[in-house]
């Protein structure tokens, strides 16, 4: 019951924060709303018994990415002008509503399979086995490492002058 209340509170706050990110004119405030959104999502993970994921969400998104984002904004000129107006605001809003409606309808009208087992607690050790163990996703983890290499190369190439 307590988890239910927590879930709905977090869900509402995260949606409002996400809306603020796209509607606020001041980019700095939008970035702070994004941080709030990240934190509430981490809370959602806790209510869903995904403890490790919640910790990673806080460490990576709330910790590292938010700081990068805010630092990036502070180093950018013309930030005080705010985000420019967009002619396509209304059509985009409409498309988002239609997409939301479709997804909500599909999700509500589906009989989801529910596992009889209770949630796994704690998840960290099992996840480690899944990611790095003999019968796990080690190959995918390695591909992600190569992906990071490509991203670092890109950052160097795009930021340094020609």
């Amino acid at each position, binding site marked *: 019951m307590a988890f239910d209340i927590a879930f709905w509170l977090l869900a509402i706050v995260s949606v409002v924060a996400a809306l603020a990110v796209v509607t606020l004119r001041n980019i700095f405030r939008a970035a702070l709303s994004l941080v709030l959104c990240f934190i509430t999502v981490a809370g959602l993970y806790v209510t869903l018994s995904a403890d490790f994921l919640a910790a990673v969400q806080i460490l990576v998104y709330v910790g590292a990415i938010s700081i990068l984002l805010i630092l990036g904004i502070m180093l950018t000129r013309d930030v005080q002008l705010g985000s420019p107006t967009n002619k396509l605001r209304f059509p985009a809003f409409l498309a988002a509503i239609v997409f939301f409606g479709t997804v909500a*309808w*599909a999700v509500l009208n589906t009989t989801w399979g529910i596992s009889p087992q209770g949630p796994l607690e704690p998840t960290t050790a099992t996840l480690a086995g899944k990611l790095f163990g003999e019968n796990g996703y080690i190959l*995918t983890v390695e*591909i992600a490492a190569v992906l990071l290499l*490509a991203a670092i190369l*890109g950052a160097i*190439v*795009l930021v*340094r002058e020609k």
Partner: protein
Amino acid sequence: MDLGLLAPEISLAATAVAVILLDLFVERKGALAIVSVIGLMVSAAFTIAMFGDPAQVSFNGTLAVDSFALFFKLLFLGIAALVILASVDYVSKFERFQGEYHALILLSALGMLLMATATELITIYVSLELASISLYILAGFLKDPKSTESSIKYLLLGATASAVLLYGMALVFGSTGTTQLGEITQQVQALGAQGVADNPALVLGIILLIAGFGFKIAAVPFQMWVPDVYEGAPTPIVAYLSVGSKAAGFAVILRVFSSAFGLPDWLSLDWGMVFAVLAAIGMTVGNVSALPQTNIKRMFGYSSIAQAGYLMVGLAAMGVASAGETIGQSTILFFLLSYSLANLGAFIAIIAITNKIDSDLIEDFSGLFKRSPLLTLGLTLCLISLIGMPPAAGFMAKFYIFGGAAQNGLLWLVIIAVLNSVVSAFYYLRVVKVMWLGEPASVEKVPSSGALRVALTITCLGVLFVGILPGFAMKAAELAAKMFGI
């Protein structure tokens, strides 16, 4: 775990790292291209050595090494090698980052290789991102306003498409409880046609998957990024995008839709028709928009949308065909091979020409025959192949793919496709006419380096070989299609 099965990928990754390190020590940057091409050839040798072995699943079902995957791996390796050869002149203008340029091409090829061989949704997604992110960076490599615009547009739209794809994967996972394509197949079969229809989340997931992959292959209605990205990106990268990224997208679509969601008759019939309608719209939109273009890279952008439409005729035939029939798959593989050769060849010639005349406008190609007869001849042959006229490869490719669709009762689609080919002849032949009959702006010869000439020769001979003796390539395509789904 069998690391031996990953030999092509591991050697390619090692080459990419070697190129980055070599860049620090070597003064003559031409060596980087040589090392890259050698690395690609080593990887290809590993791939060829695996041909004929029975299909194997490895890494807990995340990887399937079958002749389908091997066919695509060879295709991607060949494409990457030709792009690197074609870049030699272009890259020599860069003051910096030549090592990064080659490494990113190799890493992108690595992503494509993995896309062809992955049989698990998360692995497919990560491989796709590896291929795409490298391409986003390469598109912005010139760092002038146009190139940057192209890169940012590609990144934003690509990221949106990735989000859509992930959403689709999440819904499929939620409905089936697994991300392995093999297990999804079993689940979908167990559900049956009615079970799938009663599960809107699964249907929505499949639709979102089509949308996400549709972006990669530039299928209508996910094509709006193509002309702008093509116009601004470095020309060798445009060649790479138009061929490699498209072929990789088709590899994944073929893998996912002929195994996981292929079987219930009701469902497959349904997505067959979806692809048929998208194919018809794609061809028409691409060809009609290509007609008024004056910039050759934009024209090729629209033409690649149309070519994706022709390819989707094959997907439609595959969706409508009865179970166990692989005519759709094999004709798509054959078409991809001939399209890759012709499009790459055309771009290699365009790179050589635009390097000299410093303009992408078609009217500036005037009288090129008098300035560089061999380049003009090569470009003409590739354009003829793209129209689908004999003796070039494109003719046989269209013949097979349309024939397969007609056999499966999609005659209306074939008629639209043939009409579209006639429309496409207008804009392709306009380029030919300008080059052969126009007055040259100057009498200066158009120079081209040895690497470019080798690449153009390989593609033109390939176009002719596949066009005149299609039997060999068709055998390979049939073999690759039959091994499907293990």
